[in-house]
């Protein structure tokens, strides 16, 4: 859960966030290429979530299961939900939405890790 793969998800999300920020500043809406990159991120997230559930089943310590699965579900849902929400937005607002969402993804990954480790405040 805390391995290099989780870090990779965070890094990719932050890089895409930077890209979205550039689009926002340049007053452009995301191109087809941007959506493909988001699809790659979503695939990575799905793998992360499936891996998380598998690890949860075989966990050797107590993990608040509902909370853990809840964060994973939110993580899986957020990128497609955002894509649906901006599907007809032709302005830079679409890029702004992506900036927000791509900041929330790393935050959610960190929360998943905290819930897993039981170090939530």
């Amino acid at each position, binding site marked *: 859960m805390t391995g290099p793969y989780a870090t990779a998800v965070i890094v990719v999300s932050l890089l895409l966030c930077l890209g979205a920020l550039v689009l926002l500043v340049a007053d452009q809406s995301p191109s087809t290429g941007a959506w493909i990159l988001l699809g790659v991120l979503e695939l990575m997230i799905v793998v992360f979530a499936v891996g998380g559930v598998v690890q949860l089943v075989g966990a050797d310590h107590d993990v608040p299961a509902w909370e853990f699965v809840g964060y994973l579900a939110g993580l899986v849902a957020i990128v497609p939900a955002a894509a649906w*929400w901006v599907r007809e937005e032709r*302005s830079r607002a679409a890029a*702004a939405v992506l900036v*927000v969402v791509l900041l929330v993804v790393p935050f959610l990954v960190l929360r998943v890790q905290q819930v897993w480790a039981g170090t939530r405040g």
Partner: protein
Amino acid sequence: MAETEPGLPQRSTAAGFGRVLVVVYAIFAVAATARSVLQIATRFDEAPLAYALSAVAAVVYVVATVALARGDRTSRRVAVVAISVELVGVLTVGALSLLDSTAFPAASVWSGFGSGYGFVPLVLPFVGLWWLWRTRPGER
């Protein structure tokens, strides 16, 4: 305002900057609802007041999200009410949680003026009301 998509009113609360605002509201709506359901289902006895307030906050965020996303005349009124409640809520709970921390032993979205969420819950209602004012009908 050169281009507007068909089907969306010209001054919709969900277009342009509103797209982003609705997303932020939606994130808080989902987060607050999920957290509140968990709190009430698993440990309501620990802090009934805080958890009840968590539920109120969740409902307020959900209503505000839907109203802002719809953006018709009725929704606009609903949004004003919901966001006003949100503003009063975050200020009241924020102040109370500082004055009397025993009343709010558990974290809620609004405790400490939303400090656990980068103070976004404190800023959000102001932005929401400003946006409703900005997009008010009849102004050109």
